[in-house]
């Protein structure tokens, strides 16, 4: 099996790809045919001819500023720039001639006259297009003596040079050296066109022109820059340079792999020297990200070598003792003895597993197989329980399968977008950049969110409607949108008749037409002005291709599953299913949430979303595994903790998941963990859950193993081992060690064999093999005989379940209500620079952007309580209380407060309650009634917690 893959063709073609009728022309005597609208530069690249260039790259539109790509075209005057000249039929182009060579050399000479001579010690050596182009055009001398320059700190007479500016190293990951800049604008254009943040600009005119992050008073860190790195990637001079390259030198080889942060699933070239990672560069061939990245994926990988990483197995008799480092044999032996003893004493169903949405499909599959085939029960769950389980239930009921309907490319064809309960610029940044690009082209946006997220209004993006609903009223708002569409005769009845169950639609239409669902009737409840909601509904119904993107602001509610069904209803009502530019798209939180759900992590279903009660499904796995499978559903995470407190659940193997920090009602989670006899944590770090663990099995990072992740588009991407596991084993090997110590007799030698088993047992994966993924780069399930190369769009000719099903969505208020004791509603979310519980990102320089969780509170509510910006405040609910600092902002409405959950010392989940989605037990993180008041500092709980954590993390020195 190939561990190392040399990137296939990822040459820079100079200008972006175009779609259009074929045009044939001649370049240097070669005939080449390209789509209409293609530049001469790109056409030349297609023919294998690289025209010299500095200011062009294929990720941004041509600009024509560097004048290096001049060519001659027969019948045309002068020497046009090939990057800005579109091809024409029969055109005859010469990219090389004495004339253009002379001109190019002259241009290069001018650049060189105002640029520092590059010495042997420069970090940009070998990484600078400017150097390469100087060599390409044969520049040998510079005849000009600069009169003024911005290159030298001091002038010839020894006085300070007023035009010189110091290096900006405020960003933790890259530097900007103005002296090396040739003002080609590539960085500015990448920031505008690729990232869509518009943080960079060229200030000044003529010789005074300078690239500037923010205003003249800003540096990179204080500007709007989100540190996506697109500017660094395109810089042709090394003026913008990664600090890691400056420190380590240029990489010598690269491996294509998949990011282990959010559910976008960006492809990267991991660039290495030996087994040392130097740089992560987004891979242009990646179909999810198309060459773009965010600050986490590109830069925040230092956690993989952080000193906190635990590399030896550890055990302890009780959680009050310090850890003892032991051999793998001893740790596995200790764990299996305990698990066996528990099952003997408390029965077969007294132990279980939690699979990880951060681990690979193959690892997840093995962990659920461990509980089903070795523990002989169905006690398996995954962190998708606490994020997207309502998506599984809701889309399963309406469409027949639990997955997003589109690929990310689809957004390029959408006309009206609803973003509901999601904050893509923070949570799914690369998708957000693709969405913003489409919005700048004119697509309309409707944001439904209690908080004014960046998409509501930011540079060159403005939502047509922001429905700023009260937390907990999603179903009322979605039903009101449907009411307007049905009552005003805007439903696409032709689509519904053809594709959906018509009788169910008639029942639904009668239900939704009732005046109690009208925006006027629900306004008092939701806080959304009726006229605004009506306008939004009309826009979505009449505006062309309508797409819906949603996140955890939809699912993490008492009515999470109902809201997902309401969203599916909206898509069916408007006929927005089954083609490009439309669809229902859950934005998945973690890298492999989709995959962990696909792989049978839920306690009621085997891989491929098939209920364990079905004998035909059990038979497939019983045959493959040689065991009898329990036909009853197992315990979900909250049920496991309840059963632990009740004394009937005693042992847990938890892989790559930190339930103590991420799950709601921390005290209850802690009580459940403390009641168990054997908690096995398998992770990179001593996470919060490990404070209650008896066995710690060190994990391997995504850089250290082979496998696959499945992103929010159902795209199965390859994760490739770029270095040996620092802990000695890939995570799937650790699970196999544990299983075999319990008598499983597994003998996998490579994850590809695990995928082969998945394919053999799961119809939607039937055609998936590592060879296919290697060949195609990635593949979207379903991938089988019917769709041998996968399925970019679902439900094209019909729904998976046959007819689409409309489901009545009555709004039922959550029992979590604001009242006299707890008058405010808390909702939670995340921020761009940090990821989930922060275990990875807190161990990187990303903390410079967000070093603590803050409580956003409206100025009105703050003033009533005497709270000023930056004050310590106490945040209390009926579950518990914590303290954190306040951020006074009108991003939240009066009556609503907001915080993130990235830092364990804040413990936002001490405050969240045990209320959950009616269908799936997905916790209601997004609505908690709270009170906020001034405080002097950490609460007793925080101090006790910190003391317990410190005590629990003690490690005895290794015995010699």
């Amino acid at each position, binding site marked *: 099996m190939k561990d190392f893959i040399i990137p296939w063709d990822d040459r820079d073609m100079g200008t972006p790809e175009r779609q259009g009728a074929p045009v044939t022309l001649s370049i240097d005597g070669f005939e080449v045919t390209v789509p209409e609208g293609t530049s001469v530069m790109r056409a030349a690249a297609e023919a294998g001819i690289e025209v010299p260039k500095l200011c062009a790259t294929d990720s941004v539109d041509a600009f024509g500023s560097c004048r290096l790509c001049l060519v001659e075209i027969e019948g045309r005057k002068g020497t046009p720039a090939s990057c800005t000249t579109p091809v024409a039929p029969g055109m005859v182009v010469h990219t090389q001639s004495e004339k253009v060579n002379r001109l190019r050399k002259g241009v290069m000479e001018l650049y060189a006259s105002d640029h520092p001579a590059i010495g042997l010690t420069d970090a940009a050596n070998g990484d600078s297009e400017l150097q390469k182009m100087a060599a390409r055009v044969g520049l040998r001398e510079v005849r000009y003596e600069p009169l003024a320059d911005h290159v030298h700190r001091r002038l010839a007479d020894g006085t300070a040079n007023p035009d010189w500016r110091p290096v900006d190293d405020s960003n933790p990951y890259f530097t900007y050296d103005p002296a090396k800049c040739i003002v080609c604008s590539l960085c500015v254009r990448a920031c505008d066109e690729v990232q869509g943040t518009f943080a960079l600009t060229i200030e000044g005119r003529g010789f005074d022109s300078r690239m500037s992050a923010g205003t003249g008073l800003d540096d990179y860190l204080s500007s709007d820059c989100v540190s996506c790195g697109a500017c660094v990637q395109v810089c042709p001079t090394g003026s913008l340079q990664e600090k890691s390259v400056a420190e380590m030198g240029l990489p010598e080889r690269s491996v294509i792999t998949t990011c282990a942060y959010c559910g976008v699933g960006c492809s990267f070239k991991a660039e290495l020297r030996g087994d040392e990672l130097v740089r992560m560069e987004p891979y242009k061939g990646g179909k999810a990200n198309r060459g773009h990245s965010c600050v986490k994926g590109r830069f925040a990988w230092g956690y993989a070598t952080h000193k906190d990483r635990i590399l030896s197995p550890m055990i302890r008799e009780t959680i009050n003792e310090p850890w003892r480092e032991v051999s793998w044999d001893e740790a596995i032996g200790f764990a299996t003895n305990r698990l066996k003893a528990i099952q003997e004493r408390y029965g077969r169903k007294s132990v279980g597993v939690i699979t990880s949405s951060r681990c690979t499909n193959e690892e997840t599959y093995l962990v659920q197989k461990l509980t089903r085939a070795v523990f002989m029960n169905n006690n398996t769950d995954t962190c998708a329980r606490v994020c997207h389980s309502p998506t599984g239930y809701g889309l399963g009921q309406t469409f027949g399968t639990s997955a997003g309907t589109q690929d990310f490319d689809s957004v390029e064809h959408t006309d009206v977008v609803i973003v509901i309960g999601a904050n893509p610029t923070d949570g799914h940044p690369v998708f957000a950049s693709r969405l913003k690009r489409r919005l700048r082209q004119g697509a309309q946006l409707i944001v439904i969110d209690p908080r004014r997220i960046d998409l509501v209004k930011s540079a060159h993006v403005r939502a047509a409607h922001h429905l700023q609903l009260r937390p907990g009223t999603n179903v009322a708002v979605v039903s009101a949108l449907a009411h307007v569409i049905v009552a005003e005769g805007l439903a696409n009845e032709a689509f519904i008749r053809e594709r959906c169950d018509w009788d169910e639609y008639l029942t639904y239409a009668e239900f939704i037409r009732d005046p109690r669902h009208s925006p006027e009737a629900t306004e008092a409840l939701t806080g959304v002005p009726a006229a605004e909601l009506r306008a939004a509904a009309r826009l979505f119904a009449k505006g062309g291709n309508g797409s819906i993107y949603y996140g955890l602001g939809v699912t993490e509610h008492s009515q999470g599953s109902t809201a997902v069904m309401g969203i599916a209803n909206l898509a069916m009502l408007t006929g927005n299913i089954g083609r490009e530019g439309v669809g229902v798209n859950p934005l998945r939180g973690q890298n492999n949430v989709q995959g962990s759900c696909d792989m049978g992590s839920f306690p*009621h279903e085997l891989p491929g979303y098939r209920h364990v009660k079905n004998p035909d499904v059990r038979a497939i796995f019983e045959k493959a595994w040689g065991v009898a499978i329990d036909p009853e559903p197992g315990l979900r995470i909250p049920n496991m903790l309840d059963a632990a407190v009740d004394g009937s659940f005693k042992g847990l193997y938890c892989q790559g998941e930190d339930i103590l920090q991420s799950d709601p009602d921390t005290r209850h989670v802690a009580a459940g963990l403390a009641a168990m006899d054997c908690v096995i944590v398998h992770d990179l770090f001593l996470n919060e859950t490990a404070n209650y663990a008896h066995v710690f099995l060190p994990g391997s990072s995504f850089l250290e193993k082979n496998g696959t992740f499945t992103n929010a588009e159902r795209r199965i991407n390859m994760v490739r081992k770029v270095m040996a596991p620092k802990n000695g084993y890939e995570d799937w090997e650790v699970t196999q060690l544990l299983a075999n110590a319990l008598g499983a007799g597994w003998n996998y030698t490579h994850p590809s064999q695990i995928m082969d088993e998945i394919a053999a047992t799961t119809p939607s994966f039937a055609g998936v093999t590592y060879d296919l993924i290697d060949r195609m780069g990635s593949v979207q399930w379903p991938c089988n005989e019917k769709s041998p190369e996968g399925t970019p769009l679902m439900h094209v000719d019909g729904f998976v379940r046959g007819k689409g099903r409309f489901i009545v969505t009555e709004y*039922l208020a959550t029992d979590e209500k604001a009242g006299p004791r707890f008058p405010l509603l808390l909702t939670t979310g995340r921020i761009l620079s940090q990821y989930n519980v922060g275990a990875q990102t807190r161990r990187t320089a990303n903390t410079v952007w967000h070093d603590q969780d803050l409580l956003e509170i409206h100025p009105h509510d703050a003033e009533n309580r005497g709270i000023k910006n930056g004050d310590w405040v106490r945040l209390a609910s009926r579950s518990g209380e914590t303290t954190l600092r306040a951020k006074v902002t009108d991003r939240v409405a009066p009556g609503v407060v907001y915080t993130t959950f990235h830092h364990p010392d804040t413990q936002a989940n001490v405050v969240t309650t045990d209320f959950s989605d009616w*269908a799936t037990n997905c916790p209601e993180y997004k609505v908690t009634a709270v009170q906020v008041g001034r405080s002097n500092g950490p609460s007793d709980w925080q101090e006790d917690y910190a003391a317990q954590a410190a005590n629990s993390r003690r490690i005895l020195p290794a015995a010699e």
Partner: protein
Amino acid sequence: MSPEKMVHMANQIAAFFKSQPGADAAERVAAHLSDFWEPRMRAQLLAYIAEGGAGLDPVAIAAAQRLKPVAA
């Protein structure tokens, strides 16, 4: 799990199916409980009903009576 939490969860499920068209809410609640509640949770519900079932929605009680017996 605490009886209050179990009652709350069961009533939430009943509330959803009561909102659906048709007269088979109890059957559908029973099917949901069989599909998603682990046997010991169903056993706890049945035991709670045997003791009076205080606070439970009548549809949840009717549903529980349709559950096939479970070995806890």
